[in-house]
């Protein structure tokens, strides 16, 4: 850590210590967060930025700085903070273990920082490997694969056809044609809705109409009659007409539905 006295004025205020490099305006933190790939990445940044020895990390210093970040993070992007909080716990644990009085004989592996150092170094190696992979020439970018055009011709020989085969086929077609009859299917532009309106108009004029009188058998073709019938069913369904019959096989009458159903 640099301790030398500094005399500088910023916004009229005398600065007698190096500005904490770690200070990030809250507005900018979100941008910073995007650039870190996680707590290990952030720790590495802090270590490298301050030229700390990764193998002899000053835990107190690092933990304070790290926690500063995480506090800001919690305010801005809570969902991101979980992984970072886990690391805080680890840092604090290491720090407290280092404060404990040590037995006289301390094996190297017992350094509480060992696991963190191992993970930091492994992550750093992967980070560098990723950068290297990214820089390698790749197909689709720096490498262009040759692909000369070639019309792949099917090697399957088409079957040979003689005049007799053709005649035979034609006869078969004729034979089958006799079995088949053509039906002309036209699209009838008949609207059930339109017929519903017609019926309603007629019922409002004539009050009560006998069912069969609704069908004009001379003028209409079958499609029209069907649509007309569908229209009656539709009207009944929608509760717009009442259909009544006194007894079985007696005439059926239609009238407009008026007021409350009985």
């Amino acid at each position, binding site marked *: 850590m640099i301790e030398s006295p500094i005399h500088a004025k910023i916004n009229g205020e005398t600065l007698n210590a190096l500005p904490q490099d770690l200070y990030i305006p809250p507005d900018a933190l979100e941008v910073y967060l995007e650039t870190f*790939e*996680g*707590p*290990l*990445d952030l720790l590495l940044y802090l270590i490298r930025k301050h030229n700390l020895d*990764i*193998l*002899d990390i000053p835990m107190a210093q690092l933990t304070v700085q790290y926690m500063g970040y995480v506090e800001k993070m919690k305010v801005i992007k809570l969902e991101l903070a*979980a*992984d970072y909080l886990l*690391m805080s716990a680890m840092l604090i644990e290491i720090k407290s273990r280092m404060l404990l009085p040590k037995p006289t004989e*301390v094996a*190297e592996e017992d*350094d509480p*920082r*060992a696991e963190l*150092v191992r*993970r930091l*170094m*492994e*992550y*750093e*190696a*992967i*980070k*560098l*490997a*990723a*950068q*290297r*992979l*990214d820089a*390698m*020439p*790749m*197909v*689709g*970018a*720096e*490498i*262009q*694969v*040759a*692909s*000369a*055009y*070639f019309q792949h011709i099917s090697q399957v020989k088409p079957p040979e056809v003689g005049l007799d085969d053709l005649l035979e086929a034609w006869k078969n077609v004729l034979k089958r044609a006799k079995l088949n009859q053509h039906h002309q299917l036209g699209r009838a532009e008949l609207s059930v809705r339109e017929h519903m309106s017609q019926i309603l108009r007629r019922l409002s004029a004539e009050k009560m109409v006998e069912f069969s009188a609704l069908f004009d058998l001379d003028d209409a073709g079958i499609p029209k009659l069907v649509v007309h019938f569908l229209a009656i069913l539709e009207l009944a369904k929608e509760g717009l007409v009442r259909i009544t019959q006194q007894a079985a096989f007696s005439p059926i009458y239609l009238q407009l539905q008026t007021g409350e159903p009985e």
Partner: protein
Amino acid sequence: MREPDNIQEMKQVLEAALLTAGMPLSLDDLLRLFAGKMERTTLRMLLDELKQDWADQTLDLVQVATGYRFQAKAQYSEFIARLNPERQPKYSRAVMETLAIIAYRQPVTRGDIEQIRGVAVNPNVIRQLQEREWIDVVGQREVPGRPSLYATTKYFLDDLNLRSLAELPPFEEFTQSEIPLSE
């Protein structure tokens, strides 16, 4: 059917096939060109000669993981790239780091990747790599939950112009040498 009866013609058959295949051709693929009337050793020799023949031409005959292919020599790359001004979007750091972990530490589970990177793996990252056909699932680790084990594919090697994983930059290049922890 007629068979090529001299070296020159055999090489021409190989060349035409490799140029039009649109993907790398393996030795087995190339042997099929000669209807079983070709020795593997002869084929290798012919491929070596073909490579030499193209040495001062515009294309390189290279061997990648899935076979042989012709590709433009590197010095033409920047010109050819101008034909497609829309550069391929770069993968995010998360994607590249995940790829590096799978490449160097395979087969790995999602948990392994999270352990190394210290953050949860975004399923989108794995999906992007699978869609590119650079990684696939090679099995399950026999632990509770049977997590999928991911590995890189041959297409990943093809796209990086490599024949095998051994041709990746050695991982030691990226690790600092161990220094004992001081008191």
